[in-house]
């Protein structure tokens, strides 16, 4: 294993939601609604639009890549030195919607701890010590 491994990781979360795609689409694309479940933002459903999500712990740099109303929404997601792409897919299912979120494209060697930031290392090793203490 080495630090330039091209292997990428992805995260998928999906769920059947008892509301139609049109309603979920609004929650995914209107800034004041996005803020209620995700983070403060200056999102706009326009391909190429650069925006940020902001939280107490920092911000996420994003750019809109795909907008297919009520079907697919995709934006880049860069935080803590990690670059990935978040893709939302809405599929009608029995009066409701199958909602799928995939975050993909980041590599194991992009882990924040690998960047050696002092605070990151301290948190990492503090957590390590707690786990080791438990396994004894």
């Amino acid at each position, binding site marked *: 294993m080495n630090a330039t491994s091209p292997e990428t990781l992805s995260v998928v979360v999906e769920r059947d939601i008892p509301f139609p795609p049109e309603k979920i689409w609004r929650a995914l694309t209107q800034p004041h609604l996005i803020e209620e479940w995700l983070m403060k933002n200056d999102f706009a459903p326009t391909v190429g639009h650069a925006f940020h999500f902001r939280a107490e712990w920092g911000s996420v740099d994003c750019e809109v890549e795909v907008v297919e109303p009520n079907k697919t929404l995709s934006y880049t997601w860069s935080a803590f030195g990690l670059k990935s792409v978040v893709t939302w897919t809405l599929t009608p299912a029995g009066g409701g919607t199958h909602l799928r979120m995939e975050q993909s494209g980041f590599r194991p*060697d992009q882990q924040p701890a690998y960047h050696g930031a002092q605070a990151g290392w301290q948190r990492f*090793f503090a957590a390590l010590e707690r786990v080791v203490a438990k396994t004894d």
Partner: protein
Amino acid sequence: MSKAQDVLFRTLADPSRRALFERLCREGEATVGALTDRSGISQPAVSKHLRVLEEAGLVRGRPAGRQTHYSAQRAALAPLVDWTSHMVGFWRDRFDRLEDLLKRMDQ
């Protein structure tokens, strides 16, 4: 816990080994002599810790003449720093909040 994680935890649980590994991460390649200078432990002890780190895949030795230069292999930490698990937890929580919002929204 997987075997790979177990080995990494045991290897890094020792404060001297952890200090050596952190120093190699911070400062790049170093010889046993250079690592001994500011470690507060003996050269044989440093060599022994480096062997354990090397067996765990956390450092690699590069022979150069009579010296061996050691460097950190940060990618070996991958089994410990499971970013994907963290993100799955994050998004599941956000899905819950999204569903709550949808219940409160008008049509």
